[in-house]
C-alpha cells in the first residue's frame, strides 16, 4: 500500500493567525501556551534546582543571550563568528570599572553593557561594508587579536587577569536577574523584529540593494543592529565577570563564539526562541557529558552531527510545525 503524509493546519491556527478571532479558553491557551511556557518554566525551574544546576542554568542563560545576539546579527545579514568579542569586551569593562574605580556591580553591569556595545560597534564599523564570509573572518580574528594585545602589553593584569572582584548580593539575584534579562531579550527582540524597523533589518538580509534603493542608509541600520547585538553580548560578559569574580584572557575564548552558533543551528536559525532552545539543550548536555572525561568532546561532536543531519531545520521549527499542524497518513490509490 502506498501512502503519503498529509499536513493540515489546525483550524485554530488558521483563524488566529489570519483574523485573530479568540473566542474560547481553548484558543487562548493555544496561543498563549508557547509564550507562557518559557516564562513560567524558567521562573519555577530556578526555584527547584540544586546549587550546581542553578549554576548550569546561569551558564545556559548566558549562552542563550549570546545566541540571541548572534541571531540578531544573522537576521540583519551579518554572520558573526566572534561573539567572544562582545562577551570579552563587556567582561573586561565591568572588571576594570570594579577593580580600578571600585564601582559596584549595579553600576558596572549597565555601563559595561552600553560601553561594551559602543566599543564593539566602533571596532566593527570599518568592516560593515564587507559581506558574507569576509565579515565573518574579521569578527573571528578580532577577539583573538585582543587577547594577544592584553598578553603582550600586560595591561589589566596581563595573563593573570583581574581577580577579587565584587559579587552580586545573593545567589537569588544572580539567577533571577539573568533569567529576566533573557526573557526580556527573547520577547523584546521578537517584537522588535516584527516591527517596521525590524522589517528593514530583515530586508537588508534579504536584499540590501533593494533597501538602498528605497532611500534607506543600510549602514546606519546595520550599525543599530550591531549595537543592539553587541550590547546583549557585553551584558552577558559583564554579568559573568561578577559571577566568577574574575576577568582574564579566557573571556575571549573561542567557546563564546562557537557555542552560540551551534545553539542557533541546533535550535533553528531565523528565530530567537530557537537560539534559546538550542542553548538550553547544548549547555546541560555538555555538563552531563563531563563525566566522560576526554571522550566528552567526541560525544558532543557526534551529537551535533546527528542533530544537524536528522533535523536540519532545527528543533524549534520542528516543534512549531508539530504544534500548528495535524499530521496523518492517507492512502494513495494504486
Amino acid at each position, binding site marked *: 500500500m502506498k501512502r503519503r503524509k498529509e499536513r493540515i493546519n489546525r483550524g485554530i491556527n488558521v483563524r488566529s493567525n489570519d483574523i485573530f478571532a479568540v473566542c474560547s479558553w481553548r484558543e487562548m491557551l493555544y496561543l498563549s501556551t508557547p509564550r507562557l511556557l518559557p516564562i513560567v518554566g524558567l521562573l519555577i525551574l530556578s526555584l527547584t534546582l540544586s546549587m550546581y544546576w542553578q549554576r548550569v542554568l546561569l551558564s545556559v542563560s548566558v549562552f542563550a543571550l549570546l545566541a540571541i545576539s548572534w541571531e540578531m546579527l544573522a537576521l540583519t545579514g551579518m554572520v558573526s563568528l566572534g561573539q567572544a568579542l562582545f562577551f570579552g569586551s563587556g567582561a573586561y569593562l565591568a572588571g576594570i570599572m570594579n577593580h580600578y574605580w571600585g564601582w559596584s556591580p549595579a553600576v558596572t553591569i549597565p555601563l559595561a553593557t552600553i560601553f561594551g556595545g559602543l566599543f564593539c560597534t566602533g571596532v566593527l564599523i570599518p568592516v560593515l561594508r564587507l559581506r558574507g564570509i569576509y565579515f565573518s573572518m574579521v569578527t573571528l580574528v578580532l577577539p583573538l587579536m585582543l587577547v594577544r594585545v592584553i598578553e603582550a602589553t600586560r595591561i589589566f593584569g596581563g595573563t593573570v587577569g583581574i581577580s577579587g572582584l565584587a559579587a552580586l548580593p545573593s545567589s537569588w539575584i544572580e539567577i533571577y536577574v539573568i533569567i529576566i534579562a533573557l526573557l526580556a531579550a527573547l520577547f523584546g527582540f521578537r517584537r522588535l523584529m516584527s516591527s*517596521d524597523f525590524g522589517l528593514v533589518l530583515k530586508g537588508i538580509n*534579504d536584499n540590501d540593494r*533593494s533597501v538602498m*534603493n*528605497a*532611500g534607506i542608509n543600510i549602514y546606519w541600520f546595520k550599525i543599530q543592529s550591531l549595537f543592539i547585538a553587541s550590547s546583549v553580548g557585553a551584558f552577558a560578559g559583564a554579568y559573568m565577570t561578577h559571577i566568577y569574580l574574575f576577568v582574564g584572557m579566557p573571556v575571549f575564548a573561542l567557546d563564546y563564539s562557537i557555542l552560540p552558533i551551534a545553539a542557533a543551528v541546533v535550535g533553528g536559525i531565523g528565530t530567537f526562541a530557537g537560539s534559546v532552545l538550542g542553548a538550553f539543550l547544548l549547555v546541560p548536555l555538555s555538563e552531563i557529558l563531563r563525566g566522560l572525561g576526554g571522550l566528552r568532546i567526541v560525544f558532543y561532536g557526534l551529537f551535533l552531527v546527528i542533530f544537524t543531519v536528522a533535523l536540519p531545520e532545527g528543533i524549534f521549527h520542528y516543534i512549531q510545525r508539530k504544534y500548528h499542524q495535524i499530521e496523518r497518513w492517507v492512502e494513495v490509490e494504486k
Partner: protein
Amino acid sequence: MSSSPLLKISGLYKNFGGVQAINDLSLEMAEGELLGLIGPNGSGKTTAVNLITGFVKPAEGEITYRTRDITGWAPYKIVRLGIARTFQMVKPFYQLPAFKNMIIPLYSPRVKQQVGGKYGDRDAVALDLLEEVGFERDAFVAYKMASTLPQGYLKRLELAKAIALQPNLLILDELFSGLSLAEVASIVPIIEKLRQQGKTILMIEHRLKELFRIADRIIVLNFGEKIAEGKAEEVMENEAVKKAYLGAEA
C-alpha cells in the same frame, strides 16, 4: 525643450575593465516627459540607469538633477531627492509577504519628507498602493510570500515599491520584459496615470511597440553611445539604428 531640464547628463563615460559601457553620453530630460531608452543587448542602457541612480560611479562626466550635481552620490541619497527606479531583475524581499515588502520603501526618509510626519498605518498604505498596480484586494495576493508570487506580480510589486517613494523622476528598467501581452496591457494605464500626475519617466524597454505608443521621445544607444534621438518614427527610420538592430548588411 524647457530651459532648465529635470535631469541633465553630460559627457558621461564608464568602462568595466576594457569594455567601454558608456561612451560620451549626454542627454536631457524635461519635467513631465516620458523618455524611452532603447538599444540592442549590451548597449549600456542598464549601466546608464545605474550611473544615474548611483549604483555605479562614472569614470568621467556629470549628472545634474534640478541644478544639483549628483555625480557619484550614494544611491540612498539620490532616492531622497526623488529619483526612484525599478530593477530589471526584480529584487523583492522573498522572505516577506508582498504587502510587507512595501513597508521598507514606506519607511524611507524620502516618504517622511514628502508626506510630513506620519503616513498613517503603513500596512494600509501598502495595500492601497498594491491595489493601484493590480494586486486585487479581494484575492489575497498581497498577503502571499513574495517567493511564491509569479513574475507578473513581482514586476508589479517592483513598480509599486518605486511609486511608494513618491518620486519626481521614475526610472523603469525593462518593466515589461517577461510579461504577457495582457499583463503589459494592464500596466500601460498605470504608467499613463503616473504621467497625468506629472511624473517624469525614463523607460528602458525591449518591447518597442508598447513603448512607442506612450513615449514622447526615444534615445537609441549602441555600444554605450547615443546613435539617435527624436520621435519614435524618426528614430526607426534612422540608418544607424537599423544597422545596430539588424546588423551591418541591412
